[in-house]
């Protein structure tokens, strides 16, 4: 039952968003993706509007999202902005940059508790990127900046059967 609920939730995330809304998530949202066994390739980027290298690499994620729009690839941009700046900074940023990939907000308080649940190898520095394909037991993690080619070359082999 719980599983069904999760699938429904994921589907609503996948198809339900025409206008960009920011959904609040907890770290458990990421751990559930890590534990799933479906064939979707999740590309999860941890970023913030105040983080310069994050903002610089956002176009790569947008490009990826566009390139694989007909494939089972889901780009999720998890914002670590300050909560009090969601309306004043995050929302205007998404609008002005016309971000098409889905933006989520990590609604957690103590990073020491949730960072490990997301990825034990992560120090907490952003940007950081997680690529998961549950069906293939595949997981990739990189702390720091990433290039489009790195993203694309990681995903390509996963799309082959």
């Amino acid at each position, binding site marked *: 039952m719980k599983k069904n609920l999760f699938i429904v939730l994921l589907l609503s995330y996948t198809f339900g968003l025409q206008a960009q809304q920011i959904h609040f998530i907890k770290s458990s949202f990421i751990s559930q993706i890590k534990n799933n066994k479906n064939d979707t390739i999740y590309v999860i980027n941890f970023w913030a509007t105040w983080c310069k290298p994050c903002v610089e690499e956002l176009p790569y994620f947008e490009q990826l999202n566009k390139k694989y729009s007909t494939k089972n690839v889901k780009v999720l941009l998890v914002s670590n902005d300050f*909560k009090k700046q969601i309306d004043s900074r995050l929302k205007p940023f998404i609008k002005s940059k016309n971000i098409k990939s889905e933006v989520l907000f990590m609604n957690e*308080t*103590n990073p020491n508790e949730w960072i490990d649940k997301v990825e034990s190898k992560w120090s907490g520095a952003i940007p950081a990127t997680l690529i998961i394909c549950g069906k293939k*037991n595949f997981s990739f993690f990189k*702390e720091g900046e990433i290039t489009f080619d790195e993203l694309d070359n990681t995903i390509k082999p996963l799309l082959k059967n």
Partner: protein
Amino acid sequence: MKKLNLLLLIAFSAFQFSFIVDQPTGYKVGDMAKDFKLKNIDGKLMSFTNFPDAKGFIVIFTCNHCPFSQAYEQRIINLHKKYNPKGYPVIAINPNDKDREPEDSYQNMQKRAKEKKYPFVYLYDETQLTAKEYGAARTPHIYIIKKTAKGNVVEYIGSIDDNFEEPEQVKQKYAEDALNALLAEKPISTTSTKAIGCTIKWKK
């Protein structure tokens, strides 16, 4: 059918991939911290030996531009004011490459320290070798170090507390708890913590 599923599951598990790229290495709690010679904002070269009376040090990799460093700035000043008289001064170190982040240049460090009246030394790790040696990954990233007969022992690595955004909502003051334990000669209950922060701007 069930057997087939089980077999498939085993086959997939055997197929496990896992990649970790660019995993920083550096100090772990219990390691000996190497001394450094870095230029302070007053132009003088500083190292641990400039603090002969200190019992230890609160080494903080931080910088001017990072909003997380800024969010913690007043708390870093308070930490120094509270623990310097007890023998643990703050040694702030900016490890960022000025070409990648001009706001973190030496001149801007001097400016920021003056504006915010930093009561502690603020050193420039221009070669980034100290940050690499320590394994600093983000700003702010703190290392609490205790002077012993054997050398400078890393006692705590991580965050100042558990809430970057709302200082008044802090429940766990990790750094202060560690310092209080050291001063009381008791074991530190939490010796390392994680926090969100800006990546260090390494030279390209």
